[in-house]
């Protein structure tokens, strides 16, 4: 249906809803990155195949839906049966026939696939009651995992594009900006800059051309919220962008998507095409005379392109080198025109604010950081996955209540937030409220929302070394403090990991970090030393253990540990097979021995041993 008036949209919405309710039963198969890695694409095909064969009364092949990430990746692949919301986890292709037979035909539960809480042993049918989901509040992820991203009608049925219709019909551009400012929405990309103020500045600059861009270059390792939104609910991003374009007076824009997210590129493009087709994008949107168009720009795989000026140069076909921003990009950005750049999650939140109002939004979260924030919970935590929580929730609530604590009975050591630009927070910060300002104050940052939990088998120095190595590789190489400074900082960190550093080296690193922070050209360099600065702030003892005692307490740094085999060894040959340098000798059912000269301390033997027979000293 081509929407050529505001009224027509509500008519279409009614139709879409009717279509949805007509489908009595629906099977939602999660095709998020986690479930996909578990083979959920094959599960989807299997459902379609069997359903097509069986010809059941209340379910057709059309009711087998693929969705974006449902969130509970640790339990993937996930299958949800609607309308009951029956939640099957760790589904295998072989289970599909059983699910169809038991649940879809007989209306009974497949008990073994239900989620069982490891602590209480309680089994859950409806996923909304599972602790992992119960504590969450989903705004930006409202549709992710619930709809087929390829079906614009499903988005519309759930209220999609109604906010845009309301904005175009009832609000002046300034009123939109005021509403966003009122809501207190802050940029979800990391810095937490007030979105309303950004839009207001852009709108005020005198110019004929303005751009509204979306930053989908989620380069932070350990973050995948934006990926899941772009893959699972692309229309929410488009709707947010169109509202922004209307507010600031822009006619064209780009979504910059990482090339590493091929499905996000495809789904965004499909959504743009669908929105075009229905008159929701392009010339004369909903017959209101307002026009705005969006193109997909694929990133080339460079972390620095998450930086606004680098991103804009990349959109312009150049290498992603930032430029000094004494004139801000909101005034002089893409092609030197005023440009609004927000990230995926920010745009996905905007339609909800427009629909429900700033006051509603402000009631969620904290006064200074209203609303919710999506996080990707990963690392040494039981319930890895995609979550969205109200701001102000404590780290403890996230890691223990939602995340289910640390696996294998190990101890929590630190949580890394904010990606390479952020920092590590130790156990005594677990009760810190999660909001923009508290995290920054504690020496980390919100960042885009990666949250990586570390246990006592994670070495703080190794983590710093890891991030510094990442940044050395990802530095664009333009300015000296970042290119040479981070290189030297990484080099010194490696020295510590190898037990070759002195306390003077540590002092030099601290001095150097300060200069890199003040003298670098862009945010990448300015925040580059953070992984070191935050770990040395909270785990100085661990640094000193590497330096003075030449020991890695966590047993990670290869140069400072040795692996030995104790008498629990059953002689199963597993370690011998896995050792990449053939350093282990022994016969079946006899104690194995590691040749210390040949051993590279990779830890493969430790990882494969099922009998706790490998010791780290």
């Amino acid at each position, binding site marked *: 249906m081509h929407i050529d008036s505001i009224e027509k949209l509500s008519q279409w919405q009614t139709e879409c809803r009717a279509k949805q309710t007509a489908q009595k039963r629906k099977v939602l198969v999660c095709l998020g990155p986690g479930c996909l890695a578990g083979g959920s694409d094959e599960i989807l095909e299997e459902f379609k195949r069997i359903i097509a064969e069986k010809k059941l009364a209340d379910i057709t092949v059309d009711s087998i839906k693929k969705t974006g990430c449902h969130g509970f990746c640790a339990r993937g692949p996930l299958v949800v049966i609607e309308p009951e919301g029956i939640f099957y986890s760790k589904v295998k292709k072989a289970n599909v026939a059983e699910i169809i037979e038991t649940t879809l035909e007989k209306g009974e539960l497949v008990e073994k696939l239900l989620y069982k809480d490891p602590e209480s042993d309680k089994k859950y049918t409806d996923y909304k009651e599972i602790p992992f989901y119960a504590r969450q509040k989903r705004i930006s992820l409202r549709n992710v995992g619930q709809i087929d991203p390829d079906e614009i009608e499903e988005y519309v049925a759930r209220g999609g594009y109604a906010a845009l219709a309301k904005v175009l019909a009832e609000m002046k551009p300034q009123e939109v900006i005021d509403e966003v400012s009122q809501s207190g929405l802050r940029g979800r990309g990391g810095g937490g800059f007030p979105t309303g103020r950004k839009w207001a500045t852009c709108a005020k600059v005198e110019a004929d051309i303005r751009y509204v861009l979306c930053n989908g270059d989620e380069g932070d390792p350990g973050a995948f919220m934006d990926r899941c939104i772009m893959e699972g609910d692309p229309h929410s991003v488009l709707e947010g962008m169109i509202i922004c374009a209307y507010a600031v007076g822009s006619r064209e824009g780009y979504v910059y998507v990482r090339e590493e997210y091929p499905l996000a590129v495809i789904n965004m493009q499909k959504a743009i095409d669908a929105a075009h087709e229905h008159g929701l994008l392009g010339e004369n949107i909903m017959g209101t005379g307002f026009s705005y168009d969006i193109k997909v720009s694929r990133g080339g795989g*460079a972390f*620095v392109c998450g930086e606004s000026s680098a991103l804009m140069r990349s959109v312009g076909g150049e*290498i992603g080198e930032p*430029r*000094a921003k*004494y004139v801000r990009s909101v005034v002089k950005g893409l092609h030197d025109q005023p440009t609004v750049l927000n990230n995926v999650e920010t745009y996905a939140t905007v339609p909800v604010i427009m629909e429900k109002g700033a006051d509603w939004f402000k009631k969620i979260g904290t006064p200074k950081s209203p609303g919710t924030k999506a996080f990707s919970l990963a690392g040494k935590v039981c319930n890895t996955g995609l979550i969205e929580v109200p701001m102000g929730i404590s780290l403890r609530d996230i890691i223990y209540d939602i995340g289910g604590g640390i696996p294998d009975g190990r101890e929590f050591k630190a949580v890394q937030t904010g990606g390479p630009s952020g920092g590590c927070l130790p156990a005594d910060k677990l009760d810190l409220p999660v909001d923009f300002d508290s995290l920054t104050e504690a020496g980390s940052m919100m960042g885009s929302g990666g949250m990586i939990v570390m246990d006592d088998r994670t070495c703080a120095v190794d983590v710093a070394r890891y991030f510094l190595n990442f940044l*050395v*590789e*990802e*530095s*664009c*190489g*333009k*300015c*000296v*403090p970042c*290119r*040479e*400074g981070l*290189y*030297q900082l990484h*080099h010194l960190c490696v020295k510590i990991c190898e037990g070759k550093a002195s306390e003077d080296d540590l002092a*030099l690193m601290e*001095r*150097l970090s*300060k*200069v890199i922070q*003040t*003298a*670098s*050209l862009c945010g990448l360099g300015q925040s580059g030393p953070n992984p070191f600065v935050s770990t040395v702030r909270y785990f100085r003892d661990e640094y000193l253990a590497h330096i003075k005692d030449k020991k890695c307490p966590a047993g990670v740094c290869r140069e400072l540990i040795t692996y030995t085999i104790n008498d629990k060894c059953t002689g199963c040959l597993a370690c011998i097979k896995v050792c990449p340098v053939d350093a282990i000798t022994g016969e079946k059912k006899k104690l194995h021995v590691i040749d210390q000269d040949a051993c590279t301390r990779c830890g493969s033997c430790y990882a494969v041993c099922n009998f706790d027979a490998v010791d780290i000293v």
Partner: protein
Amino acid sequence: MVHITINGKVVKATEGEMLLTVIKREGIDIPALCHHEAIEPTGNCRLCMVEITRAEWEGWKKHVTSCLYPVEDGLIVNTHTPEVIEIRKTILDLQLANCPNSEVIQKMAEEYGIYKTSYETVPEGDNCIMCYACTRICEVLGKSAISAVMRGHKKVIAPPFGEEPPDCIGCLACAQICPTNVIPWTDKDGTRTIWNKKFDLITCKECGKTIITKDFADYLMEQRDIPKEYFELCDDCKRMQTARKMGEIVTRAQEATL
């Protein structure tokens, strides 16, 4: 016209000009390696950083690269605070580790009291400080024969594929503008070699002195409409030719009056 305060002294400046220009005009010596008037500032070397503040900032300060910062009325600038000096020292220290053999860097570092780098010398370091002066000047010239290749610490300035740059015309602008003189070139037997590409030099029809490369002359003829015959003689011989021509006029004039 705007007024700014540099190191306590109020000076006048033109709106829109860069802070570094004003600082230099005031005779204040601050180092800058990547700065050159013929190219747009990019802020690569970070040496020209200064501290800025304003009365209404209530003590809040920030550090900016003066080559890129447009002056504005009421700006208060300090060029030699302990923090600024620490920045310059650290940068020169890092550069010294990267370019241990560059006399230019050694001299600058010594001026800031650094005689030996605190860091480990970069194994693959050459004397290139990655200031992009060469690539920028080549772009201004309209050729862009060379560019920054790779990224991060692996970044080098190189022609495409590390081979003879097809767009190079052998004008030497890159080598001449390089602050650390790391772009090698030779003129030998009527041939110029730069970026491993060989160029024929035009030689003076009279004395045989070499002038510029044929490719550069062709480019000037095409782009700037300079007649071909202007490039046939060297400057010495052209002056002699001028003298002779003037002499002819004088002689003719004298003969006419006689």
